[in-house]
């Protein structure tokens, strides 16, 4: 099976570690990339600077509350770019604000998921994301 390139955009190292541990158990061959803020995420996607050899991700997990360039701005950039807009973007956030949910879907987020409380629930959410996006869904180019 072809390796799946996953880009996690997340500024909180604790969340990065939780996601890394959860994806380690995956039955799918996941190549796990991390961008610590919005700027870095766009550099990764446009293969700029130190990311010149980066893989184009098959799926993006995007936090909303990021320093400087917000998650919503990154989302708008990705979905406004002809070559990047095909990549599914999953919003992964603690925000439960209706306003955030609506705004993200308006910006063409592929889905909006709340970060659950506790590792067990987080693990379950990650397992669901894997099953659906890597198991059921057909992604472009795979």
């Amino acid at each position, binding site marked *: 099976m072809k390796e799946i390139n996953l880009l996690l955009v997340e500024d*909180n190292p*604790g969340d990065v570690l939780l996601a890394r541990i959860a994806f380690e158990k995956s039955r799918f061959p996941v190549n796990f990339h991390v961008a610590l803020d919005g700027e870095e995420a766009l550099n990764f996607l446009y293969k700029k600077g130190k990311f010149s050899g980066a893989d184009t991700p098959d799926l993006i997990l995007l936090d909303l509350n990021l320093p400087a360039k917000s998650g919503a701005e990154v989302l708008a950039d990705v979905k406004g770019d002809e070559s990047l807009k095909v990549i599914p973007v999953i919003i992964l956030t*603690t925000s*439960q604000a*209706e306003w955030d949910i609506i705004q993200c879907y308006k910006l063409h987020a592929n889905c909006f998921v709340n970060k659950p*409380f506790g*590792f067990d629930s*987080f693990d379950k959410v990650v397992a669901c994301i894997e099953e659906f996006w890597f198991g059921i869904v057909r992604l472009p180019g795979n």
Partner: protein
Amino acid sequence: MDAEWKDPVRILILEHEPGDIELLQFELKKGGLQYTSRVVQQRKEYEEALRDFRPDIVLSDFVLPDFDGAAAFYVAKEIAPGTPFIIVSGTIGEENAVDLIKAGVTDYVIKDKLFTVVTKIARALKESREHREKKEQDEKLAKYARELERSNRELEEFAYVASHDLQEPLRMVGSFLQLLQQRYGDKLDKEANEYIYYAVDGAARMKRLIGDLLNYSRTNREWVIEQVDIAAVIGDALNNLAAGIRESGAIIHVDEMPHLAADPAQMLQLFQNLVGNAVKFRKAGIPPVIAISAVRNDTGWLFSVQDNGIGIDNQYAEKIFVLFRKLHHNAKFEGTGIGLSIVKKIVERHGGKIWFESEPGKGATFYFTLKPLHK
């Protein structure tokens, strides 16, 4: 003369007939008025006097050498707004006088009845002072209201942002403690695992607190009004409470319910919290029996939620609606102490009141009124 007026009254007299000036001065003195005056007749000196003599009141003839009483009034309004202005004239007709009063002139005195001038001055000064005082009071009140509104808004924003940002680090604490337990639990002794248990439990409780606090602050922030089918709302609330209802074997009667203009999400929260409490605070081993009813009253609807639970001691009548206030240990009845605060806030936002009737051990009935809202 008004006893509260202690200093001599500063009267600006706008008059050019020496005879009339004398008569007027005579009447003022006769009336026992303590006053100082300045007499002017040209527009320029009149304007100057308004500025540096700073009169408490202006007495003006209607016919003047280079302008008239009406123009003089508008000049006073411009330079010394709020100063009472009385026209003293022998020629002014009734119709003219009415127009001037409509335009804001305080009063007028016909020269034939000059003896009324002191009474009219006293009344004008009294009214002007009352008017000024009321205006000052209104301004003060409006300022307080603005300040209160701003501080409330800041507090709500603070609660919202704080509770939202507090969730992040807490999620880290909870998640990594769980992970620690999962991965290293078998390497730790019983005591260490117990410590972890209490820490996880504390984090989970903190999370519920923050969630409820978020809900509480949201009650003020978000606000939608539409026609709400209360029966459907109660149906949704019972659905959300299904696990607790099933587990306790609760029986719930719902009377005929109205449709009314309200915030639908808040109505759901309202009924869910009250029914949830009725299920939670049940007597051990006795399935809850809960009755929800609604009757029309003068201003809207009176609702009641009755249960057969443990009841509430009346000495806590006020306390139970206070934020974070709980009457029981967590071990007995789990909760954050925010539920009824939210309920009270929702009822009050819908122009209603909430109270209860209860005796310990004999169940409780919560009553609340709701007024249909306007969009």
